[in-house]
């Protein structure tokens, strides 16, 4: 619940936005942040909780991918 995942804003529709994280497209709530198209955000339990710079977002996504690779390898 506490591990927030970075995502890129693709489309904004009121309090909702379509985002891409790691290729998965999801609708999330953006009422807790000020965002525009193309921004990277941290998602937590279906809500954007912070805008983040692109470098930070890409770094986190790479780490999450490493996690998944390790988990797959261990299965």
């Amino acid at each position: 619940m506490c591990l927030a995942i970075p995502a890129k804003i693709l489309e904004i529709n009121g309090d909702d936005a379509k985002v891409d994280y790691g290729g998965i497209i999801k609708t999330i709530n953006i009422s807790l942040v000020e965002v525009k198209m193309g921004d990277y955000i941290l998602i937590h339990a279906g809500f954007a909780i912070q805008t983040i710079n692109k470098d930070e977002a890409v770094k986190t996504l790479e780490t999450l991918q490493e996690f998944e690779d390790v988990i797959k390898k261990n299965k």
Partner: protein
Amino acid sequence: MSLKKINELATKLGSVNIMEVCGGHTNSIIRNGIRDAMPKNINLISGPGCPVCVTTQKEIDEMINLALNGVPVATYADMIRVPGTKMSLEEARENGADIKAVYSATEVLDDKNRVFFGIGFETTTPMTAKLLENDIAVYSAHKLIPPGLLALSTDKRVNIDALILPGHVAVIIGEQEFPDLNVPQVITGFEPENILESIKIILDQLVEGKKEIVNNYKGVVTKTGNGKAQKIINENFKVVDSDWRGLGTIPSSGLEPKDDNLNAKIKYKDILGKTITKELPGCRCAEVIIGQIRPSECQLFGKVCTPKNPRGACMVSEEGACQIYHANRN
């Protein structure tokens, strides 16, 4: 290279206990082998930052009882499998109770007859506040990290020399809200390099005799936090004393809905008053939460208590120390 520096600094120090408060950190530390990579005198201890784990047995049993008495409820999927005194929410659902497991609180935004079981810290509270704003009743088990840290720092059962502070709680409350605890504290993200860097910062401080709060999650955590999230919390919740599993009652460490009509504890007090609750026999989750014992020191760990058949809250959640240690025990 942080690990090399950590090893160098460790030679200048005695035994050091560093607590990572957040279950997300425990996850990253164990999965990435950071705990095992530490010099012998640097102990990384898991703390109380797992929402499911600090929720008390009474709160869990009351929610199950409410559902069994015909009130539709919803909560995060993690909570569903946590054992209650008689059964879990999952088992109550198998017995016909209307229980919805959600990933996001928004999934029940239009469900006015449902009670939302709100758990967790400042990171999940704004989402529950959103429900209150939309007239959805809430049973609140929400807790606040700063008073929790204060209680932990004065708890005689544990000896903490420094804290790795929860990055995403810090996103919401801001760097300035963490209390001075007279030990080094470092706000940290979840990437392994970031965690190693924070450990280095802590050891540097200990060598130099400093006790500062440092933000090592720059670009994400700000001084004042997320104002919109703080506003919606303050508008919909009031601060109250709260019970934590492992830590007991902590003054001004919990939140209840401001509007009594939306507070399920008031609305359904007759049903909730009849709840039977007792601690689960043998489960040492309460001691694991405050870092008094490691999960493997519990006699149930890995034998009768496993992620498939959890006997306590710490074995259910992916942020629970028992679950994380069990998943990475090899």
